[in-house]
């Protein structure tokens, strides 16, 4: 009868990240091993807490199946003499399977007759197979870092203390690195006393639940979140959701309890971001806010591993938080004794990059560039944008950069646009994040990233594979998104050239732009392929990139959108095929202009005349960036003539003069279209 299988590895407290990653990997590791052993089974479920990693496999067969299969050997001629006497090859073949020569028979195949035997293998007992699988499992579990302990050579995420291995209610006899498999687990470190015997694999979850261990991570999270909401209500507020804290806290306890604590209201004078950063970063507490005003309440929620005495635990945590908030307030008060502007000189002492000078140098370059991008206050904002990096509070909580600069600036009474730029020039922080909404913020944001990008390329720091220490890919995507969606239109190529000019005076070792320009252009195009390709398809973006001069991103975007819309036009398909054909034949056409006198009346002359009629208008539309209009003209006027042309006209005639003239004509038409997009790069 099929039975459930349990393997539990008991450890010292594993870090949250270790548990999550191991649990992700476990089912596949075990299922692959079972499949390789041909042991049939049901679902495999990974379970775990800080102190254990477990896998529960449903309905594992009692035995691996008996095997009976026909195995082909050497061909008849190699196996037997003409008179039927066996040759060496046939004897060896039989021996290989532990059989006699009399067991060898002949079978007919498409390729002739071959020697064959029937191989029979008895199935093995699951419990024996499982012992091998369990013993091979621990070293295959992936950890971010492994450690050794004691005087052994074994490496694991944390020291291993016990291993439970059960097939139904039977112990899978075996061991790993001297640790024997058994049924003895442990309950909660503090809420359960002594050993916990697991009666059977299927009773695992329930048995441990009684011992105050909730082994299912999802159940732990659900219970924890419910308790968090209930406690928030008790505090008269609502929980501020925080996915990071949910995952983190659920991975730090074996049974979740929520303790409600509080801090003095006087700390609410601090910026809310500071309070949340202190609670979250240092203590992993959840914050609570007033459901109506959305303002922070002087309460917090701590997820605890035990709660025999919640008042005592709250008291201890209150004390810790009070000290932490006092520290933060000390930092903020000290910081406010100096203006942001007075901090700027200290930026000269912070290295931006060893070869690229200080952060002070950087903000000066950023200022000039932001101003050139069309933000009159660009210099003021850029100079102050990084000033909070030398504040005490940002030293303690780097994630508050920008936020605190804005807060300090606002308290100094600085210009509202400038203080917003201090905060918002860090946007977007990630793929889904908002982008700066004002011209000033956008200009500083672009200047910051363009400066980093050009400077790094200038000293040979170019991303390769997974190596991108200055996050240049993300910086570039940031520029692209701001330029495409934000309030500021930029000439990308020119912006980078200006960024480079900012370096030229300061830093001698930066490579000349003539050398960097093409590399940067290639890098940016690769990012655009990613960014726009996801939306519109890679070939379409490729076709437009080929026609784009690397300057206005909105121009590129207009091309892409126009072509995407054009793709839905009834005329698209045949035009695309025709233009692709035209380009493929004529791309290497000899230079010179079309000799109209040589054009044959009919399809050839008609196509040229149709083209000539719309050419000027098309070029005008293209120059203005009105690609939909240009493509509409093409669809309306060229579709029928070009179709007829390829039906009626044979281009590659023997008469050299006629042939070259035809090639010139096709090339002229295709080149004009190429100014919009390179149709020959479209797929299909």
């Amino acid at each position: 009868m099929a039975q459930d299988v349990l393997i539990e590895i008991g450890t010292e407290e594993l870090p949250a990240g270790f548990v999550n990653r191991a649990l992700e990997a476990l089912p596949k590791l075990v299922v692959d091993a079972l499949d390789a052993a041909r042991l049939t089974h049901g679902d495999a479920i990974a379970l775990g807490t800080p102190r254990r990693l477990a896998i529960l496999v449903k309905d594992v067969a009692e035995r691996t199946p008996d095997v009976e299969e026909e195995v082909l050997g050497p061909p008849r001629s190699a196996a037997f003499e003409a008179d039927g006497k066996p040759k060496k090859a046939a004897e060896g073949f039989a021996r290989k399977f532990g059989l006699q020569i009399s067991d060898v028979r002949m079978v007919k195949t498409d390729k002739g007759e071959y020697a064959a035997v029937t191989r029979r293998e008895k199935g093995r007992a699951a419990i024996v197979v499982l012992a091998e699988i369990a013993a091979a499992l621990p070293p295959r579990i992936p950890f971010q870092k492994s450690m050794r302990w004691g005087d052994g050579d074994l490496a694991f995420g944390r020291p291993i203390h016990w291993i439970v291995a059960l097939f139904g209610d039977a112990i899978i006899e075996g061991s790993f690195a001297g640790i024997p498999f058994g049924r003895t687990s442990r309950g909660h470190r503090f809420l359960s006393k002594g050993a916990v015997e697991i009666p059977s694999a299927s009773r695992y979850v329930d048995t441990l639940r009684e011992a105050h261990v909730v082994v299912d991570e999802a159940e732990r999270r659900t219970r924890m979140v419910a308790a968090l909401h209930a406690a928030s209500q008790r505090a008269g507020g609502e929980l501020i959701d925080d996915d990071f804290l949910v995952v983190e806290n659920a991975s730090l306890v074996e049974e979740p309890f929520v303790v409600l604590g509080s801090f003095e209201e006087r700390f609410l004078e601090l910026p809310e971001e500071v309070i949340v950063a202190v609670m979250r970063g240092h203590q992993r507490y959840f914050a609570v806010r007033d459901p109506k005003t959305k303002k922070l309440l002087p309460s917090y929620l701590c997820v605890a591993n035990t709660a025999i005495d919640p008042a005592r635990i709250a008291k201890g945590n209150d004390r810790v938080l009070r000290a932490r908030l006092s520290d933060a307030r000390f930092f903020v008060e000290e910081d406010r004794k100096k203006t942001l502007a007075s901090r700027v000189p200290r930026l000269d002492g912070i290295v931006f990059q060893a070869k690229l000078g200080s952060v002070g140098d950087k903000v000066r370059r950023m200022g000039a560039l932001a101003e050139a991008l069309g933000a009159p206050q660009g210099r003021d904002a850029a100079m102050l944008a990084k000033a909070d990096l030398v504040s005490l509070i940002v030293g303690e909580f780097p994630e508050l950069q920008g936020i605190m600069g804005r807060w300090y600036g606002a308290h100094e009474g600085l210009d509202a646009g400038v203080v917003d730029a201090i905060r918002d020039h860090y946007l977007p922080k990630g793929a889904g994040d908002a982008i700066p909404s004002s011209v000033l913020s956008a200009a500083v944001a672009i200047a910051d990233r363009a400066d980093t990008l050009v400077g790094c390329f200038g000293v040979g720091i170019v991303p390769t594979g997974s190596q991108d220490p200055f996050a240049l890919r993300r910086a570039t995507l940031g520029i692209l998104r701001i330029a495409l969606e934000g309030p500021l239109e930029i000439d990308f190529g020119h912006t980078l050239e200006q960024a480079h000019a900012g370096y030229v005076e300061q830093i001698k070792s930066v490579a000349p732009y003539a050398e960097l320009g093409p590399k940067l252009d290639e890098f940016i195009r690769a990012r655009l392929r990613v960014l726009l390709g996801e939306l519109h398809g890679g070939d379409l973006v490729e076709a437009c990139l080929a026609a784009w001069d690397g300057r206005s991103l909105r121009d590129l975007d207009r091309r892409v959108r126009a072509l995407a819309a054009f793709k839905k036009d009834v005329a698209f398909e045949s035009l695309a095929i025709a233009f692709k054909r035209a380009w493929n034949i004529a791309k290497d056409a000899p230079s010179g202009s079309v000799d109209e006198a040589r054009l044959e009346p009919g399809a050839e002359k008609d196509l040229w005349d149709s083209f000539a009629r719309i050419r000027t208008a098309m070029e005008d539309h293209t120059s203005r960036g009105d690609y939909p209009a240009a493509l509409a003209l093409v669809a309306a006027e060229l579709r029928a003539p070009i179709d007829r042309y390829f039906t009626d006209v044979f281009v590659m005639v023997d008469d050299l003069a006629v042939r070259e003239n035809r090639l010139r004509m096709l090339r002229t038409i295709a080149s004009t279209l190429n100014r919009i997009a390179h149709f020959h790069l479209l797929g299909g």
Partner: protein
Amino acid sequence: MTTALTFQDLILRLQAFWAERGCLIVQPYNSEVGAGTFNPNTFLRAIGPEPWNVAYVEPSRRPSDGRYGENPNRLQQFHQFQVILKPSPLEIQELYLDSLRALGTDPEKHDIRFIEDDWESPTLGAWGLGWQVWLDGLEISQFTYFQQVGGIDCKPVAGELTYGLERIAMYLQDKDDVYSLAWGTGVDGRSVSYGELAKRSEWEWSTYNFERADTDMHVRHFDEYEAQCGKLLGLQKEKAKGGALQFESDDAKTRLVLPAYDCVVKCSHAFNVLDARGAISVTERQRYIARVRHIARAVCESWYAQREALGFPLAGVLAPEGPHGSARSARTGGAGAGEPINVPKKKKEG
């Protein structure tokens, strides 16, 4: 908890507890260190195969953390209680929890957590994995399983337990201000506070570290101790191809490893004072750190070579037994690693 332990009771209890469990009780290092890890009883003894169990108080100095006696939680000198168990016994966490019980703290009634906290000093080739221990949200101890020191694999692995004594005392005595802690009982039977012992000292040392310390002298001391360290080890200026250190003599017994290690400690402290004085720029900072790491590595390699040349005299006192870090064998000796500069490791003061 009945009557709260005084600061000195806390130390005495911990000493008694670990002495009963087979640790040698030794005394603090007699030079300025930033953490108990710097005591050669940890830093050097973590290297090599010799078992070693030891416990000691370490007054630890972090010049930059001084607050002129005005901050209730920060001190330029605080106290760590350091325990080294090498090899690390399998029940090391239980031993630690028992030590809390010995202090009158019932782990069952509190929220005790082992939160990931790794220690690493990459260029020194020293790192370990472990935890900080939280008691109701308060970090009271650190746990590290040393993996490598001076680029040398720790075999066996030493387990390091570091108690932050001021923090634990503040929790035990329910005090928010370190200076109001009861240290012990004075001649007239009156309670003597931590502040009476340390407040003036904090002010003087803060003033010294931040304002008065002679920077030229400290720069000079750094250079001189660095040079002295190299001489004592016969360390050659040039590294071999591949970056290996080269010594004038292959006979490690000719090297004065312990005085050389003392020079490393002196350099480290000089650096910390200069740092507190704001006399070191960001770029210089990295160079200073690299210089200390360089000589610390030379000391570690020399220590290993010397113990090896001496036949690892403490090895085999208790033979390792079980397959994965047997419990009993861990009762013997210890040593540990530490960063060469006082700065990296987490704060442990009250």
